[in-house]
């Protein structure tokens, strides 16, 4: 099997404000392959975005990457551990945007209102490519063209608030691709958009991925999007990846109760008309109030008293690609250990 | 004409020599405070003054002039010095030696309101000018003068050949012009001045010949001699009396000013039109500006210096008057100093600091006695010498009790009670005030003028009711029905039992009167009288006194040493400044038509005496003055505290380079400090 372009091992990112500790990412691991799409899914507040930002080392204080490895294979074949890099270092900056592009969820507030979109794209380009202002501008216009923005020559000089939501998101994508990165992280790229625009944006991303052989990390809480886009899936809950595997496996043979719950919550064409849409019992606990043992047990329908609430479940391998973190699978001897 | 022959200096020094070094223990009672000895300081000089050579035989025959004037003569722009000087010369022998020409005299001033700063330098532009003792008048514009035996005609003999600064002759016509076209012009002066209307009977100015002027009155007016010699509306001269919107001074340059008067300028319309053309509202505003030497460089003057850059600039510049009529025994036309420049200081701290930095060559005006230690500290650095000149007036902080106060009957009752006033006077510890605010250099006492002066009422009168005696004060207050006190030990009103609160209105002016009053209030508190000090802005204070709103007002009584010439701070005769009783002043001033007649017989007596004096000969006049002072002091209408001090214009910083400067100045309104010392004789040694 080909080497992953990016592989994350036991990533630990904690926030340490005065009031306590938030284990935002608590030992997440996954691989990302060129040309493939990894979907990271979970309810909001489960650490998806933090994971993504950890990779770029742009987690805001008081958050910090405290452990694990983030192994990135550079174009020249070198493998760097981003977790060990100084987040202010030149190399880290080259990687941001250069090797990894990032699409944020709110295009409105993610673009500066005081600068034209062109200005920001050109900046992104010239940060990583030796181009004159003029060339960069040409490039920016091409990019806008590429992401399917009408009359790019005019648009390049307009401000974000003058654009529609869809166009803004396209600009974001252009921005992310400005320096032709190998990896694209799309953080809830479609949440802020209406359904039709969603479809267009997803389509665009898929197209670009195909054209440029991009590795994409798609972060979303929407199983539907995952089903549409992802090759493999990682399901996150409270900073831990509770199940990961190929998209078919996850969808057709979900193991972890949480995954199952998530799946049940997607509206399905197969479902009987007017049947109530299932929701996950209870709500995600407060970050400070992370329960001991398996973080999911308070909401779990197959909760085993004395087991799940005692210690954290180990990772159980279902098959080569499919892993799940739950006591229901594999030897219960784990608990004794 | 004689204001008394006692020379001021001797007795002053006698008093000063009594002093001994001041030593006191903190815990010990203030009584141990001794009057400190000024003589130790070596800052008080001998009174000395210029001498006027009146014997034509001793006059110089040949004359010199300042180089730049000689230059102008060469160019034919100026007649030769000989022709510029009058036949009747004024020859002044400087205090020390013949001087040299050249140099600029740098001074500080505080703005357009400070015109006196320059007026005083031109003090010689008046008919008569007192000598350095302030006691004897000298000739000035007039070479001689005479009062007829009946006291109805006063004659001035002008100098033949006297010329204005533009070269035009100065004659009796200029006196007549002032009298007929300015003084008698109701638009300019709505009403005659007392100086010209003895007992309400208007006098006249009559030209005898070009060089002889008569002032003619219907009733005996012996006082007129004093008026002519004093800093009065009639005798004050052009510089002060016709600047800053004033229109007095007995003479004016007819040949120049006529053009601005409707009478000579083709009627009011024409005059107004001309005024508008020059940016003035009316002919009158224009006239006020044109006759003002501080504003109008073109105005012909008679003083040693004339304005070249008007006062309403950041720097007020004066230059020598090429036709100045005074020479030294060597025949040098005065003044020696080419120029006077006054730099605007927005506040007095800056002015004082600049003085200490040696940025002024001779400054006595606006110098703060409180800064004396600092001033001495910087003597060598600022290259100046400090002189302390002691004033002649009785007190620098006088507490006037408003006799016509009405707003609060209870308060009014006590303000009018003689024993109340006496008690409060006894309660004032003048030594304390002297030490704190006058650095111990002044003299405690009543309001009476200094022993040296003719009007001094006699031994004991500076002490009467004016020595510290808390016990007696308490007894007197108890006796007059103020025995009842409140919890804090303050005496209470007889009407409602509330604490009796007096208001002392104090202005931060020449002296820190508010602070002084705080100390006085603290001393009064010790005899159970609550006095609230009102630190009031100057205009406000005056407006309120004019509206009869004040209980007690603090000011100084400078000028009262010549009671008849400047009575307002001793007797309520002019409503504009009558702290002792504005309503009574209105009554007196209006001849009984306005205001309120005093019901206090003593005040009426004072008014009588004052009026009668005008017609009395010198000796009787002196007696009358002493009489008035005795009543004033016995009644304590105004409490005197500390005076005869250098507090006002008496701290003098003199550049080491400056020569012929007397080591002692006469500090009095009519001495025109420093002008009375003839600055035109001062010069730079190097």
């Amino acid at each position, binding site marked *: 099997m080909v080497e992953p372009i990016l592989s994350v091992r036991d990533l630990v990112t904690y926030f340490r404000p005065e009031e306590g500790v938030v284990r935002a990412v608590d030992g997440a691991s996954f691989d990302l392959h060129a040309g493939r799409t990894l979907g990271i899914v979970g309810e909001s507040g489960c650490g998806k975005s933090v994971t993504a930002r950890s990779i770029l080392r742009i987690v805001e204080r008081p958050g910090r990457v405290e452990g694990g490895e983030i192994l990135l294979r550079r174009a020249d074949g070198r493998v760097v551990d981003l977790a060990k890099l100084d987040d202010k270092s030149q190399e880290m900056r080259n990687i941001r945007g250069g090797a990894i592009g990032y699409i944020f969820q709110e295009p409105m507030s993610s673009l500066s209102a005081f600068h034209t979109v062109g200005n920001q794209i050109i900046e992104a380009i010239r940060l990583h490519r030796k181009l004159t202002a003029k060339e960069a501008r040409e490039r920016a216009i091409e990019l806008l063209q590429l992401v399917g923005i009408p009359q790019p020559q005019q648009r390049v000089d307009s401000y974000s608030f003058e654009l529609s939501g869809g166009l803004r998101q396209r600009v974001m994508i252009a921005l992310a691709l400005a320096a032709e990165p190998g990896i694209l992280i799309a953080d809830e790229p479609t949440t802020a958009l209406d359904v039709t625009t969603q479809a267009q944006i997803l389509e665009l991303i898929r197209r670009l991925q195909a054209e440029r052989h991009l590795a994409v990390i798609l972060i979303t809480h929407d199983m539907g999007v995952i089903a549409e886009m992802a090759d493999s899936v990682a399901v996150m809950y409270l900073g831990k990846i509770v199940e990961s595997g190929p998209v078919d496996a996850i969808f057709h043979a979900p193991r972890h109760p949480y995954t199952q719950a998530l799946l049940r919550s997607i509206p399905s064409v197969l479902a009987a008309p007017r049947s109530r849409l299932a929701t996950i019992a209870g709500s995600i606990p407060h970050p400070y109030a992370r329960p001991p043992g398996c973080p999911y047990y308070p909401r779990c329908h197959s909760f085993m008293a004395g087991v799940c609430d005692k210690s954290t479940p180990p990772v159980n391998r279902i098959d080569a690609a499919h892993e799940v973190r739950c006591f229901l699978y594999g030897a219960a001897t784990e608990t004794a250990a | 004409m004689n204001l008394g022959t006692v020379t001021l200096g001797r007795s002053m020094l006698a008093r000063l020599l009594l002093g001994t070094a001041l030593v006191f223990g903190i815990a010990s009672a203030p009584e141990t405070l001794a009057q400190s000895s000024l003589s130790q300081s070596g800052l008080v000089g001998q009174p000395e003054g210029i001498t006027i050579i009146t014997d034509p035989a001793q006059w110089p025959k040949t004359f010199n002039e300042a180089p730049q004037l000689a230059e102008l003569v060469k160019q034919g722009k100026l007649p030769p010095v000989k022709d510029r000087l009058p036949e009747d010369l004024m020859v002044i022998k400087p205090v020390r030696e013949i001087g040299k020409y050249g140099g600029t005299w740098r001074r500080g001033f505080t703005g357009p309101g400070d015109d006196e700063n320059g007026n005083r330098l031109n003090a010689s532009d008046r008919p008569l000018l007192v000598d350095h003792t302030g006691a004897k008048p000298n000739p000035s514009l007039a070479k001689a003068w005479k009062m007829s035996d009946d006291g109805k005609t006063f004659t001035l003999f002008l100098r033949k050949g006297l010329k204005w600064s533009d070269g035009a002759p100065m004659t009796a016509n200029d006196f007549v012009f002032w009298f007929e076209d300015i003084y008698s012009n109701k638009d300019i002066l709505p009403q005659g001045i007392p100086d010209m209307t003895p007992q309400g009977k208007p006098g006249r100015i009559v030209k005898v010949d070009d060089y002889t002027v008569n002032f003619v009155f219907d009733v005996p007016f012996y006082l007129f001699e004093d008026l002519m010699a004093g800093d009065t509306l009639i005798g004050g001269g052009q510089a002060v009396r016709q600047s800053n919107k004033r229109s007095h001074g007995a003479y004016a340059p007819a040949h120049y000013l006529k053009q601005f008067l409707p009478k000579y300028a083709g009627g009011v319309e024409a005059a107004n039109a001309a005024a508008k053309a020059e940016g003035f509202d009316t002919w009158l505003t224009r006239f006020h500006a044109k006759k003002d030497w501080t504003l109008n460089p073109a105005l012909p003057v008679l003083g040693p210096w004339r304005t070249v850059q008007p006062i309403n600039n950041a720097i007020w510049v004066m230059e020598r008057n090429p036709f100045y009529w005074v020479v030294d025994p060597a025949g040098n036309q005065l003044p020696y100093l080419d120029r006077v420049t006054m730099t605007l200081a927005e506040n007095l701290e800056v002015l004082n600091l600049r003085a200490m930095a040696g940025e002024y060559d001779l400054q006595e005006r606006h110098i703060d006695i409180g800064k004396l230690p600092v001033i001495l500290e910087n003597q060598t650095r600022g290259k100046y010498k400090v002189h302390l000149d002691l004033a002649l007036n009785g007190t620098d902080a006088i507490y006037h009790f408003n006799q016509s106060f009405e707003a609060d009957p209870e308060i009014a009752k006590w303000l009018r009670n003689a024993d109340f006033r006496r008690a409060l006077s006894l309660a004032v510890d003048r030594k304390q005030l002297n030490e704190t605010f006058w650095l111990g250099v002044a003299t405690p006492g009543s309001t009476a003028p200094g022993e040296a002066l003719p009007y001094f009422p006699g031994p004991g009168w500076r002490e009467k009711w004016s020595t510290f005696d808390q016990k007696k004060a308490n007894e007197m207050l108890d006796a007059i029905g103020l025995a009842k006190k409140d919890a804090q030990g303050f005496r209470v009103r007889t009407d409602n039992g509330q604490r009796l609160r007096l208001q002392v209105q104090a202005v931060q002016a020449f002296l820190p009167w508010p602070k002084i009053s705080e100390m006085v209030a603290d001393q009064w508190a010790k005899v159970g009288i609550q006095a609230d000090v009102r630190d009031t802005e100057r205009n406000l204070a*005056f407006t309120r006194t004019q509206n009869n709103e004040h209980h007690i007002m603090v000011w100084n009584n400078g000028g009262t040493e010549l009671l008849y010439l400047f009575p307002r701070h001793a007797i309520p005769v002019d409503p504009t400044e009558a702290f002792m009783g504005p309503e009574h002043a209105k009554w007196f001033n209006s001849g009984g038509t306005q205001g309120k007649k005093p019901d206090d017989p003593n005040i009426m007596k004072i008014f009588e005496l004052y009026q009668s004096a005008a017609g009395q000969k010198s000796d009787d006049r002196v007696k009358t003055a002493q009489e008035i002072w005795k009543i004033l002091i016995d009644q304590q209408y105004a409490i005197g505290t500390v005076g005869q001090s250098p507090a006002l214009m008496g701290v003098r910083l003199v550049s080491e380079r400056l020569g012929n400067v007397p080591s002692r100045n006469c500090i009095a309104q009519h001495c025109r400090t420093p002008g009375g010392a003839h600055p035109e004789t001062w010069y730079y040694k190097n």
Partner: protein
Amino acid sequence: MIAYIVRRLILALLTIWAISVVTFVIIQLPPGDFVDAYIVQLSASGSVVRFEEAQALRQLYGLDQPVWVQYGKWIIRVVQGDFGASMEWNRPVTEVIGDRLWMTIVISFAAIIITWGIALPIGIYSAVRQYSFADYIFTFVGFVGIAVPNFLLALIIMYFGFKLFDLNIGGLFSSDYQLAPWSWGKVWDLMKHLPLPAVILALAGTAQLIRIMRANLLDELRRPYVTTARARGLVEWRAVMKYPVRAALNPFASTIGYLLPFVVSGSIVISLVLSLPTVGPLLLRALLAQDMFLAGTIVLLLGILTVIGTFISDLILMWIDPRIRAGMHE
């Protein structure tokens, strides 16, 4: 857009008119009038003004008329560009003010520039390094600025300047340039005297701006677009300077207008202590002397300056903030 500007202009005119009224009222508030003040000033110098002369003078200056008449006459002249004559200085008000107005503006702007020069960097720093040691130090130093009454500072500096460094006392020109007409030499002389008062003047405003800048920037720093900027590999300081600082600076445009009266008020006291040839001492004197037209004109001019300032700052705001611009078009 034009309509907007016009509307602002009309409002500005209204404001100016209101100011003129308030001004006149203020000046009339204290009891007494110029003639009283004049009498006081004369009697202080020992000369006498007789009661009747005083009345004559009142007529001369029309002070005997009711206030509203006086205002009417004044404002009519002002509209015609004639500000009347100063009673105390016996000169047209415009002449009296003359250079002093420019001096005031020069000093004020010098102060404002210094204020910004100090405040913005510190503000930015203490926002980016919130609660850091330096944050405390800088804010502390900044605050000492407002805490020390600036007149006190002025006097102390002046005295010790004289005592220790032999600086010449007060003023904006050294004595040799006092009389001289405007020349490069004089300008340079002015430049040499300017910093001291300007800095003293600036201190007060500085801390204010530090706080505003810090607060604004703290808000902006949390906006996603900063993260975006980082995410595209921008150097940290650049990411901060180009985006959030730019945004945080915006509100400053609107403060320009109000900074002026603040600084001018301050300059009155400073100028008084340091004896600077600004309108400050002139105004103070005019108010004390109740020299109506002079005081009125100065206050009015300052008011107008402010209104213009606010107006301009609005325009600037409109010009630098694309969102407002966009709003204009709609």
